């Protein structure tokens, strides 16, 4: 009997969540400013309450989807009674309104986690951190309620059937890609809140960094996974085997990742050496601002892509105002307060401090490069100077050399000591790694492919340099231990996190290098009985047929794949037509492997029983995402470090061997 009112329950819960967010923003901040413990104590219960009510709202929307309540406009536009139940549930974040609700839910979730997990945080700092998060949350909840309410009803003319979820989004990659990405985007709000709180307090110490670092790591790991999933999804779902397009929407997620990576490293310096303080705060502000900018770009409709749902200009304006207020407010505060928190610490030009400074500069330059390439067409268009697009050559021309430079310094960083490192010692420890990397990288293309290829050698050189210098560092750390086991146990999780993260980048670089250079693609016209050979594999088209799925009909091809005359396996690519939207979709047949993927996609029906097929051999393509998974694992592993769990004791200096 309550069933018909589920959307109203959700709507009401959403309004209550906004009220709680407003209290969470106002009262604790005022309390911290006037030192009233009672007011400060409002922060935690409000954070928990906001999350609870958002959970109710989110569950209501999901229930409306599962119950096929097409009187709710958002459900009617994004679902269909034929849709399998799991896609009904995940259609909640399949379009604009629902994904903004998910965004708010996650923001409240992070706030709730801070309230629950950082209980030993000093009361004033906790009040300020949660207050700032409440401010951000209020902004976004207002945005949802005023411009993108998912609970709007279509009354009294209720449609009998829904328009269906965009078929591109009916996929497991899409079930997990947006939540991961949002967890990353929104997760950076925590370190942003910590940064603002520090500015308000006018103080940053080692304890502050120890509170802020784990949150940053986890958000960064989520974002890494989210970006990798997006790339993986595009690879198999869009049907042409590309894995990165320098599409503005991809760039929008890469921007906070680059800034966030700089932030991780800058936080390390701030914790270990007490320097870079105002820089760290500035990076925290930038990282979250770039997350917001990404949201603006994707949600405002200024960009055109799969992701651009909203064409309502008020939404774009609203997010732009939110962005302006957040960035403007934060930077003003920074300008007023930053001199208070900064502190001069000296270091030599060759030291881990200096190398991390170089790392930060390079990452910021990369961020600016991508930002410029992404915004330039928008700015020209807004000024009426013509319509342009910035193509991949621009990004590749700048990104590849910058990455090479970054890797060069990345090899040195972990080996170098804080404060000062004699050049001779650095050379003594790394000469072997450098030499090994050069020799192996020069030979690898010859062994793998029989012909020398400068691009491949350069890419492998970078990856090998990273791996060998990491290995050398590990060996040096273990050398003086009594036994191997004792040595391994002495190394902190933070150190292993660093090793894993850097190794992940090396793995990704190998993947990018090999697949970009040795990828084989053939677009062929095939009729039943035709054979074609690609990279040593023979593909024979055995039959063409038809198949009916729950909400689509499909043309199915069956291909026998053999190698050296030996039959290996069959592949079944499909060309589907989704009935509700009359929309065709390519369903790729993949044969994944650690060293190569075989990829067959159906192109078009050419008539006379012939089809255009896209057949690809993609060596090492899995390494792209494997590397991202390793990076994310490294980020999470570093959080397991004991010094983050010690609470108040953490104030004491930690002298263990750590990677930081």
């Amino acid at each position, binding site marked *: 009997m309550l069933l018909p009112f589920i959307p109203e329950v959700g709507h009401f819960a959403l309004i209550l969540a906004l009220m709680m967010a407003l209290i969470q923003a106002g009262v604790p901040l005022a309390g911290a400013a006037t030192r009233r413990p009672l007011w400060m104590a409002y922060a935690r219960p409000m954070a928990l309450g906001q999350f609870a009510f958002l959970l109710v709202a989110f569950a209501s929307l999901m229930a409306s989807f599962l119950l096929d309540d097409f009187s709710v406009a958002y459900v009617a536009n994004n679902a269909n009674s034929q849709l399998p139940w799991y896609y009904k549930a995940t259609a909640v974040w399949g379009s604009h309104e629902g994904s903004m609700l998910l965004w708010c839910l996650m923001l409240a979730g992070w706030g709730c986690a801070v309230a629950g997990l950082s209980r030993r945080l000093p009361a004033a700092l906790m009040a300020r951190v949660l207050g700032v998060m409440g401010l951000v949350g209020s902004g976004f909840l207002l945005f949802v309620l005023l411009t993108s309410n998912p609970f709007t009803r279509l009354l009294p003319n209720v449609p009998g059937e829904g328009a269906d979820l965009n078929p591109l989004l009916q996929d497991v990659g899409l079930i997990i890609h947006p939540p991961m990405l949002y967890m990353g985007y929104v997760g950076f709000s925590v370190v942003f809140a910590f940064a603002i709180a520090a500015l308000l307090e006018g103080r940053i110490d080692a304890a502050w960094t120890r509170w802020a670092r784990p949150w940053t790591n986890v958000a960064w790991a989520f974002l890494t996974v989210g970006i990798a999933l997006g790339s993986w999804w595009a690879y198999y779902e869009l049907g042409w085997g590309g894995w990165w397009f320098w599409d503005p929407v991809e760039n929008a997620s890469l921007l906070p990742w680059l800034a966030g990576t700089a932030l991780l490293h800058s936080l390390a310096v701030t914790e270990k050496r007490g320097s870079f303080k105002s820089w760290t705060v500035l990076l925290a502000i930038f990282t979250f601002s770039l997350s917001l900018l990404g949201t603006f770009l994707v949600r405002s409709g200024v960009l055109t892509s799969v992701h651009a749902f909203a064409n309502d200009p008020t939404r774009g304006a609203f997010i732009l105002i939110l962005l302006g207020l957040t960035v403007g407010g934060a930077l003003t505060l920074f300008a007023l307060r930053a001199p208070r928190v900064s502190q001069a610490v000296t270091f030599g030009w060759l030291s881990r401090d200096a190398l991390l400074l170089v790392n930060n500069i390079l990452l910021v330059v990369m961020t600016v490069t991508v930002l*410029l390439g992404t915004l330039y067409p928008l700015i020209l268009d807004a000024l009426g100077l013509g319509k342009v697009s910035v193509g991949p050559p621009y990004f590749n021309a700048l990104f590849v050399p910058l990455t090479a430079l970054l890797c060069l310094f990345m090899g040195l960083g972990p080996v170098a000591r804080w404060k000062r490192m004699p050049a001779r010692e650095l050379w003594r420890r790394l000469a072997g790694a450098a030499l090994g990397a050069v020799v192996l990288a020069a030979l690898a293309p010859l062994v793998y492919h029989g012909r020398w290829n400068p691009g491949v050698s350069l890419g492998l050189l970078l990856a090998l340099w990273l791996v060998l210098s990491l290995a050398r560092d590990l060996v040096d750390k273990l050398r003086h231990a009594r036994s191997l086991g004792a040595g391994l146990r002495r190394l902190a999780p933070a150190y292993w996190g660093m090793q894993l993260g850097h190794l992940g980048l090396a793995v990704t670089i190998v993947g990018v290098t090999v697949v970009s250079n040795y990828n084989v693609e053939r677009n062929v016209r095939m009729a039943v009985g035709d054979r074609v050979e690609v990279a040593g594999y023979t593909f024979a088209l055995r039959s063409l047929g038809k198949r009916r799925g729950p909400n689509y009909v499909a043309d199915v091809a069956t291909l026998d794949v053999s190698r050296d005359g030996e039959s290996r396996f069959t592949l079944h690519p499909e060309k589907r037509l989704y009935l509700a939207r009359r929309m065709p979709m*390519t369903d790729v047949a993949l044969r994944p492997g650690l060293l190569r993927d075989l990829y067959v996609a159906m192109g078009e029906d050419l008539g006379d029983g012939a089809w255009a097929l896209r057949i690809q051999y993609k060596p090492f393509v899995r390494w792209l995402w494997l590397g991202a998974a390793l990076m994310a694992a490294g980020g999470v592993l570093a959080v397991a470090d004991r010094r983050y769990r010690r609470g108040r004791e953490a104030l004491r200096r930690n002298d263990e061997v750590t990677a930081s």
Partner: protein
Amino acid sequence: MTPARRRRLGVLLALVVLAAVAAGLLGYALRSNINLFFSPSQVAAGEAPVGRQIRAGGMVETGSVARDADSLAVTFTVTDFQASLEVAYQGILPDLFREGQGVVVVGRLADDGVLQADQVLAKHDENYMPPEVADALAAAGKSPADYRRTE
């Protein structure tokens, strides 16, 4: 000026110079790698450069798509209802490529006025109109809806 201040000034100047160099390089990379968009009318008026990569777009004219019988070569024309542009492409067209649909093509204009396309883009939504195409149509005094009515 104290030595400390002089040093700070030096660092500041170095930063400014570096930033200027970086901005210059960025601008250069941007200039040589951007693709301007041209509507079929602009191409017909000779505004588009020959032999340089450009983007063009419009509605795919009904009945204009011609496939080669034994390869993947295809030709079609795009129009903004003022002028038409012939496009030649070799390969597989995107899923949502259809006659009467707005598309964007990336390629080089040959001497004979045919656009040799490297890429054909049709976005994944049946109601989607590339904004460049929508604007080009609006500039020609038409809207995609007009076209649907005349179909």
